[in-house]
């Protein structure tokens, strides 16, 4: 319908009037808030501005991906660690939740009755309980594991105790950076080759396109020959040393987020699969393809177009939900910002930082998924 305002001049003035009024209202609210804030902050002797980011931060941080010393390193550095800690749980979380959700979503449509029922119960149960309750439960589970001395050892060198999960890791060597770079280059190169080879009917050629993925890092390894030093966790007194530590807080948060988000993703995957008409299944079966091949080659690619947009919002939810970390003591961005604003009193700046970071992450995910969706729309139609 053509806007009324363009049809009648009097309505155009009316439209301008309404918009001016709305703007004036918003400006008035902001001005009142700013006036009150400046008055209140002055009365409470709270500083303003982002200068505090350069001050030393007396926050003890358990898990850091950057070097950090309490009372020496700055608040800015603490914030950066918080952002990295958020990403550290969000990125593997999205990947594993997608994997688990897809499996459960497919299981819900399985012809095996019991499997389908169990998958349905999983989805119903996890979706109807608050995530926070699930996180507190998992945190309790990880905390009531035995002490390090009696820790469970599911695999040799892997220790599960109330101090978290310890497993052997590689000590970082100088040559590793090059190998990592070669691996990334290999994947990129393989992607380019695969696109070229996709049109070829020869299966061998399509497989050959994947060769750079193992080949590139192998060549880099041969060239620099970094020493592989494995750090094994060993028990010293009451705790472990060496190896890689996954803290109980991180483990609980990751477990809770993955299981919860997977229940939503399962429903999205199921919805996508159901929307593909049953004729597609039948056509695949008529070609003599086994069920798994029909699913992988015919149904999933078509379902993907419907799955991607709601999947994006689940990724966004997972990232936002990772902020519940503060309730179980995992030091993500929100937890560190919360401590900061309690110490400095600069609530406005602290909350603004949280919001900006989350908005940036949300925008980045939306953008990436929209690009992928556009790519799908181009290639499948």
């Amino acid at each position, binding site marked *: 319908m053509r806007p009324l305002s363009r049809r009648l001049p009097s309505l155009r003035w009316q439209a301008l009037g309404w918009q001016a009024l709305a703007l004036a209202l918003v400006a008035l609210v902001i001005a009142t808030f700013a006036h009150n804030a400046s008055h209140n902050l002055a009365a409470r002797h709270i500083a303003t501005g982002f200068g505090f980011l350069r001050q030393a931060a007396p926050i003890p941080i358990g898990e850091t991906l950057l070097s950090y010393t309490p009372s020496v390193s700055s608040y800015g550095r603490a914030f950066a660690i918080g952002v990295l800690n958020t990403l550290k749980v969000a990125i593997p979380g999205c990947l594993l939740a997608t994997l688990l959700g897809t499996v459960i979503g497919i299981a819900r449509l399985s012809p095996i009755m*019991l499997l389908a029922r169990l998958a349905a119960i999983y989805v119903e149960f996890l979706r*109807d309980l*608050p995530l926070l309750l699930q996180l507190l439960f998992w945190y309790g589970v990880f905390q009531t594991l035995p002490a390090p001395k009696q820790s469970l050892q599911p695999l040799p060198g892997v220790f599960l105790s109330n101090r978290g999960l310890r497993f052997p890791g590689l000590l970082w060597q100088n040559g590793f950076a090059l190998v990592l770079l070669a691996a990334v280059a290999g994947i990129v190169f393989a992607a380019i080759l695969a696109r070229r080879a996709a049109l070829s009917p020869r299966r061998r050629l399509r497989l050959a396109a994947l060769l750079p993925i193992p080949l590139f890092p192998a060549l880099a390894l041969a060239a620099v020959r970094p020493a592989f030093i494995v750090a094994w966790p060993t028990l010293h007194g009451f705790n472990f040393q060496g190896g890689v530590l996954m803290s109980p807080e991180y483990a609980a948060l990751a477990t809770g987020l993955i299981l919860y988000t997977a229940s939503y993703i399962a429903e999205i995957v199921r919805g996508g699969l159901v929307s593909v008409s049953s004729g597609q299944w039948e056509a695949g079966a008529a070609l003599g393809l086994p069920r798994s091949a029909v699913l992988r080659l015919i149904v999933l690619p078509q379902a993907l177009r419907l799955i991607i947009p709601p999947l994006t919002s689940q990724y966004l939810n997972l990232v936002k939900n990772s902020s519940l970390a503060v309730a179980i003591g995992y030091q993500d961005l929100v937890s560190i910002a919360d401590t900061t*604003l309690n110490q400095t009193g600069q609530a*406005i700046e602290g909350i603004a930082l949280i919001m900006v970071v989350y908005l940036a992450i*949300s925008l980045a995910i939306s953008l990436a998924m929209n690009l992928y969706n556009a790519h799908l729309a181009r290639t499948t139609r």
Partner: protein
Amino acid sequence: MNARRLVSPLVTLALVLILADVAWHFFSWAIWHAVWTLPENASHAPNTDLCRAALGHGACWPVIKEKFRFILFGFYPYDEQWRPALVILCFVVLFGLSLAPRWWRPSLLLVWVVAFALIGVLMWGGVLGLAFVAEDQWGGLPITLILATLGLAAAFPLAILVALARRAEGLPVIRLLAVAYVELIRGVPLISLLFMSSVMLPLFLPPAWDIDKLIRAQLAFVLFAGAYLAEVVRAGLAALPRGQYEAAAALGLSYAQSTRLIILPQALRQVIPMLVNTFIGFFKDTSLVLIIGIFDLMTTGRTATLEPAWQGFGNEVYLLLAAIYFAFCFIMARISRTLERRLAAPHRNIEEPA
């Protein structure tokens, strides 16, 4: 071919074995090795040594008996706790009425107003001979229900305005403001909004305005719910056939008239299932007030497990909380699904008498 035929029974067998194992462990913990009653110690409080001995392999059910009232009602005066209990009943009746299609008429609005007035009287008291109870003494399930329901009710008009504003043609500034509000709120975690209400809002208001923490959190919820509901309403507006807009215009109705009489009644009816789903989300999300220290159901449950005598029996309490949250969410989800089917039916004579 034969091998493939074996897959299904083998998977079923494996699942049955796993299920039996899980069920056995659960029954062993919850019933077989569980502690059901405790002796009293010198000061007539339960002696939890028996539970402590069973910790890890047997449940301690006396913790539920001891903490049940606290978990449900928080610090509400013990002798007055029949009032929040009635409030819970009020909410259940209100939900029941609102989810029955034959009650979907303007007078339902009146029912909501009356229900909230009744809930206010029961919770606060101070009239009709009821003792006054301040907000900081409220707690437990009524807080959870109030935060979610009042949040939804107050956010609803806001959401309709924002959704209409987002679709307003020829008003770019208003549309931009609506988009900015919705995307900003949806892009940040709820916790940041709750922090905003608990530490930032007091800075923005005149010092004389000392608003209770609960009311500030309620404001944050309204702001949060408004953005999500606006998207739901917008989906309903978008799904309406163009013919409805054109027919309204052809009748010579003004924008306000056509919106009120033609567009909204149809659009809102279509999104009721989605609305219920969004409400289930809010109901679960209210648990986040734990982080800013408001005594909702989650916080009272958590607090109950922190008392030294009862420490370590979190799972029993969490099981109770899970049962309460699950009961509300599951029933509402079921109703929402039924409504969805009815609304999707080809002939939509919902109010048709049976």
